[in-house]
């Protein structure tokens, strides 16, 4: 037990403690409603959707970028899957192919984002913001602006609607995906490279890392998990519609930021993201239980995000030795090489 691990555990415990605090507050003020099984179930159901998105959206954030198109990608993937299943008879095999197709659309979107962001000096938030519009448009074209119901086959509706031992199936999916993402991020070379590129892209390049490939893969993963979330959502609602998952990117962003991820890159953890998702879920739930009208949700989340980002900017501004302003500006290493100042 040395100084570093104490520090590390200290930061690690921050989030769970905050969560515990929020839970305690809710438990004290609304014990009757809050501490029921049904309530927990509805919290978990909500979390399972954007929680899935968080599992993949954390990768672009770790690189110092962002994927704002997750909600739109979810809607598009959900629509694609449902349409495919419905139009090919609704057999079990069509479910499998349909899900694959839906996931593929998500990956495709992610790959396009990754390509653009890594090939040009363009700000990821703007690209994915514009892309969000495009993808919602695609979703609308797919669904013809109608609601597309899907009530069978069971193999599909079970994805979002089934349950095992009283726990919704979507939670199991979230757990599996979260675990996989955790392993990817913490136990593979790719995960290590993500932190390296996000922490210092120049040093990463000088260490032989293929920063372009890492970026591409990161956005692809984000697209993939968004697609997963969209498919689960469509299954849960038993319908696909063009404006599904609208506003979820807010929750994802809030979850990641409160979970300790830094928008400058290089800092963040999957556990943190999951805790953040849980926190957002609790906040939503708590506000509802306390009778706060839903309009106030946006305001609360805005304040939460601002507070979390300001806090993280403050702490990391202190620790990191690098000056970070606009990340997508070209790293003008060779070109503007005028003589550097001699120290002293």
């Amino acid at each position: 037990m040395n100084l570093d691990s104490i520090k590390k555990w200290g930061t690690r415990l921050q989030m769970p403690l905050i969560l515990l605090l929020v839970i305690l507050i809710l438990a004290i003020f609304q014990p009757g409603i809050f501490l029921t099984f049904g309530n927990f179930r509805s919290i978990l159901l909500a979390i399972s959707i954007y929680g899935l998105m968080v599992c993949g959206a954390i990768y672009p954030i770790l690189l110092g970028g962002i994927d704002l198109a997750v909600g739109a990608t979810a809607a598009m993937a959900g629509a694609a899957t449902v349409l495919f299943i419905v139009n090919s008879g609704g057999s079990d095999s069509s479910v499998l192919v349909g899900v694959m197709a839906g996931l593929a659309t998500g990956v495709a979107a992610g790959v396009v984002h990754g390509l653009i962001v890594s090939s040009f000096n363009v700000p990821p938030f703007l690209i994915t913001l514009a892309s969000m519009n495009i993808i919602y448009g695609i979703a609308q074209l797919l669904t013809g602006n109608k609601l597309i119901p899907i009530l069978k086959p069971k193999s599909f509706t079970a994805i979002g609607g089934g349950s095992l031992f009283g726990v919704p199936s979507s939670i199991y999916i979230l757990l599996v995906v979260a675990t996989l993402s955790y392993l990817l991020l913490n136990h593979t070379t790719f995960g290590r490279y993500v932190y390296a590129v996000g922490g210092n892209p120049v040093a990463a390049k000088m260490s032989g890392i293929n920063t372009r490939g890492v970026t591409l893969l990161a956005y692809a993963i984000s697209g993939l998990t968004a697609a997963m979330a969209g498919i689960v959502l469509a299954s849960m609602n038993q319908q696909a519609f063009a404006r599904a998952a609208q506003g979820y990117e807010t929750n994802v962003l809030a979850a990641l930021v409160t979970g300790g991820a830094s928008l400058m890159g290089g800092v963040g953890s999957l556990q943190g993201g999951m805790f953040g998702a849980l926190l957002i879920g609790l906040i939503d739930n708590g506000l509802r239980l306390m009778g706060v009208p839903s309009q106030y949700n946006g305001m609360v989340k805005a304040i939460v995000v601002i507070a979390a980002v300001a806090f993280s900017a403050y702490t990391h501004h202190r620790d990191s030795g690098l000056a970070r302003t606009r990340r997508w500006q070209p790293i003008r290493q060779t070109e503007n090489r005028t003589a550097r100042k001699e120290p002293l």
Partner: protein
Amino acid sequence: MRQDTVRRLVSLALLAVLVAIFGFTTDSFFTPANILTLLRECGVIGIVAVGVTMVIITAGIDLSTGALLGFVAMLSANLLYYGKLPGLVVIPIALVVGALGGYLNGTLVTRLRLPDFIATLSTQFLFRALALILAIRTSTGMISNKTINDRTIQLLGGSVNGVYLVTIAFLVIAVAGQFLLKLTKLGVYTYAVGANLPSAELSGINSARVRRMAYTLTGLLCGVAALFTMGRVGSVTPDLGTGLELNVIAAVIVGGTAFTGGRGDVVGTVIGTVFMMVLTNGIYKYNLPTAAQMIILGSVIIVMVVFDSLYNGFMHRRAVQREKFAAEAVVAS
């Protein structure tokens, strides 16, 4: 030829091509009625775009403009309906509230050091939530869109000799904005802060103040736009202004103001605004679904941002090359 001149020609060319396409493939494009309508549509977006131009020149961004417009409009509607205040009182209040909203953005960015997109994204939720909270409801709690009966406000939606007031306002504001950018100290400092912040500060410029100014001005213009929107539409719903920010950003980018900062002007933004409106108008004439509109809007932004990055990067590399050649070998004896 200078870089900004070339870029201006690009914007003009894009507009010309678009006008040609829609002009000749749809009927009733070049009719005075259509053109006046088009110009009216430009108004609201254009007014806000003037402010956003300044913000983007400082290498910032504002994603909260639509929500701020909606909030100011809703607040004004409340004052008119519940507060029974006359239009002449509500108008200055709207402007002040708008400016305050912009100032909030500026403060978050300069004092709390939040990245601009996060700050304005957050304030977008904030303003939108406030608009929802303030929504005028019927006794059963449903959101109603009571018509605005105030004469002054209604006047704003009117026209003079067929030219809509909002268009005139847009032109006046555009001229003022261009004047500000090119003929005042604040304008020069805006470019300086956006092009090279450290150099600007070394020269004694207070970059924080310049940036706050840009955001505040944008907020004020959102207030102006809100008033005109109320005049034109006649009622206020909480989702007023949704999606405005992307249209504004598209207009500004098409017009030549690059994200990296330090470049562009209001003239370009005017061209860009007209471009976006012709595009919207054309899509409507072609009877394309709204989905197409969304896809095209997003694509325009991505294409223009990528183009600017490539073009500016290319010009920068050329300048560096020229420099190397002119240096005639840092070498040679």
